[in-house]
């Protein structure tokens, strides 16, 4: 199976190894964002997708999650 974002082989949650790493970071950092700004998961995804410091893969995953309306695990 191919990664939902690029043409690499998918390893977890439909993502390749590289996008899976970005996905893990996105999920992990949400707790910090929530504590800092009280932002919702959807708003969080939109903000990190626009942020100039967000890495390329993390942006791609955030956009993909936002487009597909995926919920945050645990929300």
């Amino acid at each position, binding site marked *: 199976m191919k990664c939902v974002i690029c043409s690499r082989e998918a390893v977890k949650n439909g993502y390749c190894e*590289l996008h899976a790493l*970005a996905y893990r*970071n996105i999920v992990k*950092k949400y707790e910090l964002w929530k*504590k*800092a700004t009280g932002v919702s998961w959807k708003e969080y995804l939109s903000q990190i997708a626009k942020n100039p*410091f967000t*890495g390329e893969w*993390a942006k791609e995953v955030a956009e993909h999650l936002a487009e597909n309306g995926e919920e945050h695990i645990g929300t």
Partner: protein
Amino acid sequence: MKHNDDDPHIYQLLALHVLSVLDNRPRCTETFNFDIRLIFENLSFHRLTVCARMERYTLIITEKPDAAMRIACALDLNGKAKKAEDNGVPYYLAVRDKPIVVVPAIGHLYTVAEDKIGRNYYPVFNFRWVPRYMAERNAKQTRVWLETISKLARGADTYIDACDYDIEGSIIGYCILKYACGGKENVAKRMKYSTLTKEELEKAYENLLPHLDFALIEAGRTRHEVDWLYGVNLTRALTLAAKDWSGKYATISTGRVQGPTLKFLVARERAIRSFVPTPYWEVKAKVEINGEIFEAEYEREVIESRREVEEILNSCKGGNGVVENVEVKRFRQLPPTPFDVGTLQSEAYSLFGYTPRRTLDIAQRLYLDALISYPRTSSQKLPPAINYVGILKSLSLVPEYRGLAAELLAKKELKPNEGKKEDPAHPAIYPTGNLPERILEEPEKRIWDLVVRRFMAVFGEPAIRQSVKVRINVNGHRFVLRGRQTLREGWLHFYEPYVRAEEVLLPQIVEGQKLRILQVFSEDKFTKPPPRYNPGSLLRKMEETGIGTKATRADIIQTLYDRKYVRDERMVATELGFEVLDLLEKYCPSIVSIELTRSLEERMDKIQSCMEKRENVLLDAIEILKPVIEELKSKEKVIGEQLSRAIKKARVEERIVGPCPKCGTGRLMILYSRKTRKRFIGCTNYFKKRCNTAFPLPQKGVVRPLGKNCRKCGWPTVQVRFRGRRPWNLCFNPECPSKGGG
């Protein structure tokens, strides 16, 4: 006395040169211990035959032509060595206690190659040392070079290896003596010097080491052989896998040090590309002191919650500040340590943006001009034997250094602030005191000036600096105001303009003083990804982890660029770099293991101190390689497919110029028209029918994306290269202000 008729031409030249020396110095006939009788049968130069009965000459071998010229001139009694040429190969004739012929190499003339001919097979474990022209396509000139050296060697009775005194130099000299001079490696003497100044060269000639440093040579040979085994086998495995799958040839190289170095870059790139920033805030207060406005920072530098920031701002509103305490600390800032090659490369990168390779090339040129000492050193020591006073006196002839040198010369004692690192072969890099004999190019001037000022700075007194920390209480919240000041310049004065010492002067402030707070405000911040490596920081990382050597690190970084595994000055790992490392990690993790590379490195160092045997290291290296190669061979198809895709992607990536400034979402790319076959720049969104931005390009020369934006309009730029001309950086924005019309 022997009559020698091996090469009459050299004897003619030598005899003429001896005569000219005798003419100029009639009294020194006695100093020659040879009998010279010249019979000129015909005065026409071409038909001149000279019968010289003389003692055979001393043959000195150097690493580079410039060094040969310097050595010959330094040793010649008149200081004017005669240049001769054989098939375009220069050599120099000098006369001292006996005739001397100095012949240069051009770096390595021999290399490791496989026993069998051909490039399309692996594994390869049998190798031998061969002349470079036999192994490398672009090394044809080494053939005539070796022929000349062999010819000159036949007329010599004493052999001196005067190549650079380090691993590479020792191998160069050893191979020439062993193979080109017919097994003279065991009778040859070694000339050891760290600068190409006349005094040091004369001293080195008078105090020749009785034999070559065989332990150093063994260590060097092993390093070359191990690196060759790794490089040739792994590179062939990857290259052939890709070629067999796609039918197209592209060199996919890796090696013992190259793999782990690429690993650093890819690891950093992964961290950057998967980075998710988190918000934080900084709170600051504008404080008025004696009519001046200063910015004080909140005691906690980082505040992680917006609610907390708001609470602080509300609570500080309208409040005044009271100085709780003033903490003054004085500290000594020791002078820098002398330059070893790594610190010179790092400093030149941070000051001038020169890559490590460029700095080393410039330093090498300055060394060959006898302006600085041998640059490939890991020493941070400056022994008194280099004659500090003599160097400073010579430097004081340069108006810019006169005052500084005089200050140092007035000191009772000159003691450098040495670092810990040592090098048994050479001291740290220092200026020789010789002044340029030609107009230096700007980069050469900068590096020389940097070396000179650093040399003077290491003898300076420690600088005395003062830091002031003022704690201000605003309604129960503490803010900190920081100041920094130099009280005594000490060595900083000698290292201008390369000093980076920030000065923040604060007015007189006392405890209990009331201060007017003009504003308390917050700044929204985000955590940043780790910085990308640049060639300087990557070199430091390689040094810290102990991979590669001082002589090879800069070349390895360059190879990563040449192979297109990385691009740009802030090093970005490319798709190809990712794929190559991914494959190596998947199928042969030991090859990219930093621990394994370092341990091999340590064992090779032990050969140098006779604590390890070359054979053992080689056998172990082969034992590590064998299963790796087998694994790569068994997965050849999968690897070939993955690499071929990556190469294809990399070729597309190479043509990407930058983001499209018109649509903002597409990327500009160098494309070719199907109809006209002409090249142009177009947006990738054209294929999605979203953007038809296109710009013309010159149709001649090689065009490549520059990776930099235009300074005037901010658009991406390309570089156009024509053979034999300087590259031309082109902004293709027709409305760019740089075009004059806009």
